[in-house]
């Protein structure tokens, strides 16, 4: 299990390749990558604030829950903070499991918890001004399925 919280950019290709290489024996690998969307050209950049210390702990706890709940060979979470340009990767999760159902379920679980339970706050810097992204009811509701 690997958790990285960083301001540096990362490359989905490089991370995916090394995750698969280390997940020898697993039959199924799922990755999710979140990218800064341009919102129809209105977004210039995104700024992500986080709570150093708590962030790493919260993500590790979420990942440990996933490892305990599904039959996983490995899991990876990378989440960035700081200023990100449109199109840049914000975060990724990867899961490796003997079977696809476990790999998919664990990746969706990790995403649902990262959305609402990891201490990150997104601010959109756009043509129309600067705004904190509001939490969505549907993201909170998504936790109920687990």
């Amino acid at each position, binding site marked *: 299990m690997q958790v990285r919280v960083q301001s540096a950019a990362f490359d989905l290709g490089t991370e995916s390749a090394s995750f698969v290489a280390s997940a020898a024996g697993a039959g199924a690998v799922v990755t999710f990558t*979140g990218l800064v969307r341009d919102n129809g050209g209105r977004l210039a950049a995104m700024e992500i*604030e986080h*709570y150093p*210390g*708590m962030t790493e*702990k*919260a993500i590790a706890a979420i990942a440990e829950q996933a490892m305990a709940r599904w039959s996983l060979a490995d899991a990876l979470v990378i*989440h960035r903070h700081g200023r990100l340009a449109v199109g840049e990767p*914000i*975060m990724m999760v990867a899961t490796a499991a003997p079977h696809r159902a476990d790999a998919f379920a664990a990746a969706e679980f990790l*995403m649902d918890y*990262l*959305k*609402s*339970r*990891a*201490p*990150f*706050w*997104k*601010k959109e810097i756009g043509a129309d001004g600067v705004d*904190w*992204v*509001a*939490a969505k009811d549907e*993201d*909170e509701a998504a936790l109920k399925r687990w």
Partner: protein
Amino acid sequence: MIEVLYFAWVRERIGLPRERVQTTAATVADLVAELSAREERYALAFADLASLRVALDQELSSFDAPLAGVREVAFFPPMTGG
């Protein structure tokens, strides 16, 4: 003495990322009441508790939780990770 941290728009409204607070508040809600009584900017930041979250020593908690033994309290809006 307790370390109090503010994030996102809570930090912006209060104008500080963190401060040390001398308090005898028994619960988080008591601490919020004390801070709100200090100055308008605190009262504004804490006006709607339903739109706030609190962490005690870096664990999510609730406003009725006791503060005994707690070293670090953080206030912030609902998280928007992922």
